[in-house]
Structure formats: structure tokens, C-alpha cells
């Protein structure tokens, strides 16, 4: 079952990548408005957006496959481009989290003493904030002026900021188990052997410990992506993630919620996609965990805030 869902996720990613192809098929991009356009339905010319502002529902053909939104944009096209944004941010953030968490976990676990103490305090501190609140706080703080780290400037409202915020928030989630693993592995014979052979800490960490962490990392990966995608959609829903007109499932839901009476497809469709993607990742994560490490501390399913 896990493999099936894994395949589903891969299929979703491929669909997202194929977004421009679909856009060509549908004849418009994700931000191309068409408020006064008409299309042919059953031989009649129908307004894409009616005179009182109601958009058409799913047409099940290349143009307006899933209908139009209040600005006449193609929902399917936006869905796919939204997938791109949401998946891009989710995967990039998860990747960044993995890198940071592995780094911190490895250094803290192996080097011990004050490095460990500092690292654990830092992790505790970040862990103390409810995920969504921290995400919102960081996004708000950076909303006006952006972020400057040395020579790098991240523009306010850019994707990079979203990725950075989401990545940081989830570091403790992964770093603690990794640290735990490292603590356990540190005492094993092969590490002793390497040290005896004169390997320095860096070599030991890279060539001995890291490979053994791979199973833990792999087990966590799908869950981190799921968490990141959910957090991104929550931030976008609140207006501090991906801002319109760029599509993201979160901000599509935000706009769609305003139209539940006349155009429920606008809120239901992106939500369903979100659920499907996160579910696929969760099932995949479950399966991976069962396969690699049934007793792992990777939580069952993505944790909520």
C-alpha cells in the first residue's frame, strides 16, 4: 500500500512539473485573467464569469477542466502551478531541515559536552514555540523588510523566506532523534575502530556515522515534506506565505472559502489536492518506516502544530 501511495506522490510531482504543458493545452497561464471571456458549452456561448460574478464550474475538457475562478482564471492550471509552488517550498524546506537537523544532531551527539548543551538548548527553545505561531511570527517579522544574512538579502514575501521559515521551525523535530541515534552509534565498535585508526572527528562523522544515519533520515523525509507542505498552506491561508496572484493551495483555499455558495469547487479542489498529497506522503512515510526501522521514533503521521 505504501508503494502505491508513494507512486501517487511521484505522479503528483510529475503533474506539477508538467504544469506549463497543461497551461498550453488549456490556453492560458495561472495568472491570466479572463473576466469577460466566453466559452462554448453545448453549442451555446457562456460567460466564463457571469454578469453577477459567478464563475463556471468544472467543464471536464482541456479548457477550464476544473472550472474557472472569480477572475476567470483556469482552476486546473492554477492548481498545477500551485502544486509547483507548494511542492517546491515543501520539498526545499524539508531538504533544508534535513541538512540542518543532521548537522546539529551529528555535532551535538558526537562532540558532546558544551556543543551538545548549546545545541540542546537551542533545539528546546525552537521546540518551545508552537509550530504555526513561530512560522507566523517569523513570516510577520520578515514581512516588511526581508532578511539580511551577511551578503545575502532575502526579499520580503519571497519564496526563499517561506522556505527558510518553514525549514527552521521543523529542525528540532528531526534533530533530536538524529542526536539520539548518534549517541547510540557513538559507542559502537566500528566507530572505536575508526578512531583507533587515527580518523579525526570530521572523518568519523562523515564516513562512519552519516551512512548509518541514512535510514533514520530516509524514514523522516516523507513526513518532513508533509509537514512543510501543511505549514506552507497554513501560512498562505493566513496571508504570510505565497501571496496572490501567485497560486498556492493555501491561498486558493483562502479565496475559495469566499465562494462556497456559488462556486464550491474553488475551495474543495485545492483542499482535496492538499489532502491527497499529504496523505500520500504520510502513507509512504509509514511504509518506509515499517520497512527500514519499525521501532523508529519517527511519529506516526505528520504532527500538527
Amino acid at each position, binding site marked *: 500500500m505504501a508503494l502505491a501511495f508513494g507512486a501517487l506522490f511521484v505522479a503528483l510531482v510529475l503533474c506539477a512539473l508538467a504544469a506549463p504543458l497543461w497551461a498550453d493545452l488549456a490556453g492560458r497561464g495561472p495568472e491570466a485573467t479572463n473576466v469577460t471571456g466566453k466559452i462554448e458549452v453545448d453549442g451555446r456561448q457562456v460567460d466564463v464569469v457571469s454578469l453577477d460574478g459567478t464563475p463556471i464550474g468544472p467543464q471536464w475538457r482541456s479548457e477550464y477542466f476544473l472550472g474557472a475562478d472569480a477572475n476567470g482564471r483556469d482552476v486546473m492550471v492554477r492548481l498545477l502551478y500551485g502544486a509547483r509552488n507548494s511542492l517546491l517550498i515543501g520539498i526545499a524546506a524539508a531538504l533544508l531541515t534535513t541538512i540542518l537537523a543532521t548537522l546539529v544532531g551529528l555535532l551535538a551527539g558526537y562532540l558532546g559536552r558544551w556543543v551538545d548543551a548549546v545545541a540542546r538548548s537551542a533545539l528546546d527553545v525552537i521546540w*518551545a514555540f508552537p509550530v504555526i*505561531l513561530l512560522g507566523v511570527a*517569523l513570516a*510577520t517579522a520578515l514581512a516588511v523588510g526581508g532578511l539580511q544574512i551577511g551578503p545575502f538579502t532575502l526579499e520580503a514575501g519571497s519564496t526563499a523566506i517561506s522556505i527558510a521559515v518553514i525549514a527552521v521551525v521543523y529542525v528540532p523535530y528531526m534533530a533530536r532523534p538524529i542526536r539520539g541515534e548518534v549517541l547510540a552509534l557513538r559507542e559502537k565498535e566500528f566507530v572505536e575502530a575508526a578512531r583507533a585508526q587515527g580518523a579525526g572527528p570530521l572523518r568519523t562523522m562523515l564516513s562512519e556515522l552519516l551512512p548509518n544515519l541514512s535510514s533514520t533520515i530516509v524514514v523522516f523525509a516523507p513526513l518532513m515534506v508533509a509537514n512543510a507542505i501543511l505549514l506552507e498552506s497554513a501560512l498562505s491561508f493566513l*496571508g504570510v506565505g505565497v501571496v496572490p496572484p501567485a497560486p498556492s493551495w493555501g491561498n486558493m483555499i483562502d479565496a475559495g472559502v469566499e465562494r462556497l455558495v456559488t462556486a464550491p469547487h474553488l475551495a474543495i479542489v485545492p483542499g482535496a489536492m492538499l489532502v491527497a498529497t499529504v496523505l500520500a506522503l*504520510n*502513507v509512504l512515510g509509514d511504509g518506509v518506516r515499517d520497512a527500514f526501522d519499525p521501532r523508529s521514533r519517527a511519529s506516526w503521521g505528520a504532527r500538527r502544530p
Partner: protein
Amino acid sequence: MTRFVVRRLAQMLVVLFAVSVLTFLIFNVIPNGDPAVRMAGKTPTESQVEAIRADWGFDDSLPVQYVTTMEKVLGGSAISYFSQLNVRDQIVEGLPRTLSLAVGAAVLWMLAGVALGLLAALRAGRLSDRLLTVLALVGVSLPVFWLGALASYYLGFKAGWFPNGGYVPLTEDPLDWAHHLVLPWTVLAILFIGFYSRVLRSNVLDTMSEDYVRTARAKGLSERQVLLRHVLRNSLIPIVTLWGLDFGAVVAGGAILTETVFDLQGVGQYAAEAVGQLDVPPVLAVTMFGAFFIVVLSTVVDIVYAILDPRIRLT
């Protein structure tokens, strides 16, 4: 035992300090630009910005700034420049609403999560177990704001079974209070039920294969007694600590989405609205108090856990 408690408390103080420093950094230092302008929120006049700069000490050195910020936030004198209201008062006002949401949801998800988890564990491997697993996974994958919006519209407005959002104080009308909270409780709980049922299921299965359980069975205790006296109690211990932490997280502003969708006007929504208005003092205060609450709560939980499970104290 006392040594453990003392050590844990000391740790707590260190983390609290670190949390306050981090919050301070997030809002006043890390972002680009002038913190006084940022804090003034809606574009104010020069004189207003200067006043804020002096009030919060942005021209002073960082440590002095930190102390000033702590004084204002913890001392309760921080005001929002947008609404002219005292931030701490607003938080105190929103607290009963957030607590109403959190407590109700927490009880619901605990009961439901344990019940479903136990059920799944007892029928491990069979169809009903698989079904429950799928349900749990779906529950954990649902975005709460989406679920909440749909529930609020279809069950609230369209079907009319529930009020369409809003909050009625408990003291005003307990029945109405509960009526307004049923949907928010359910929506918020669904998120956790899935997770908790799976954790419990896993714990129960693990515990059931432990030696002492086999011993108990061998001693002739009925299956039910084994279940209740040994298995469940030991499976619940880790859950209780998790539960404490999650509850803390919800109170500390983690319910921001549920509150916003149902217009409950609790602490989380207060922060969310301030976010929209780029109003820094409330977000800063909520973040800091929220984190404090969690740290304190997790310390309490750790201590309780140590009382329940002596093995922990030794680490």
C-alpha cells in the same frame, strides 16, 4: 527525586531565558529595516516613530534593548500602536476563549484517540484495524482551516445544525457556549485523534508483548484485567506527556487557524489579526507568552512523567 526536580527546574529557567532572547531577536533584530518603523505599524508620522524609538530603546545597545523589551512585555505595559490597547489585557481577554477551545478539543481527542487506538490494537492485522489506520492517516492529513471552513459553511450555515462561528461565554449560557464550540472542538480534535490513536495502538501492541504482561496472563488474570491494569496504564504514560505538550501548544497560540476560521476571538486569532495589520507588539507578546507556557508545561509534564515512571529519573 528532588535532585531531578531541581535540575529540571534549572533547565527550565535557562530555556525560558533563551526563549525570551530568541523572541526578542526575531522581532527586533533579525529583520531588515528600522524596528521603530516596523513596530509603529501603520505608517505614522516622524514624531510617532521617534516616540516609539525612545520608548523601546532602539537606540540603546542590544542588551539594554533586550531588558527594555522584557520590561514592557512582561511588565504588561506594552501597547499596540495600531489599536492603542494594552497587549496583556487583550491576551487575558482572549484566554478564556482559547482555553474553552483547547480543553474541549483536548478531552475529545484524548478519549476518541485512546478508544480508537485500543480498538485498532485489539483487532491488529484485521480489516477494521486497517480501516482505522487509513482513517487516522486521513485525519492527520486534513488541513484544519479547510476542514473548518467547510464544516462551518455546510454544517453551520447551510444545514443550520450549528451556529455559524462566533463564541458565547460560558458564564452567559453554558448550553449555547457548548453549541458554538462543538464544530471547533471536532475540527481541532480530528487532527490529533488520528495521531493519538496510532501512537496508542503502537504502544499497546508493544506493551502486550512485554514480559510482565505474559507473566500476568500466566498468573491467571483475565484478559480484561491484564488489559486494564497493565497494558493500558503503561501505554498511556507516554501519551499523557504528549497530551500535555499538545494541549500547551494549542493554548499557546497553536489554535490560530481554528480560532480564525470560527471567529472565536481567542489569543491565537488576536495574534493572527495583528499579523495582518503588521502590528508587532501583540505578535511578540503572544509568541513569548505562548512559548513560556509551553516550556513551563513541559517541565511540569516531565516531572509528572518521572513520578509515574521511575526509570526516567535516572537519565
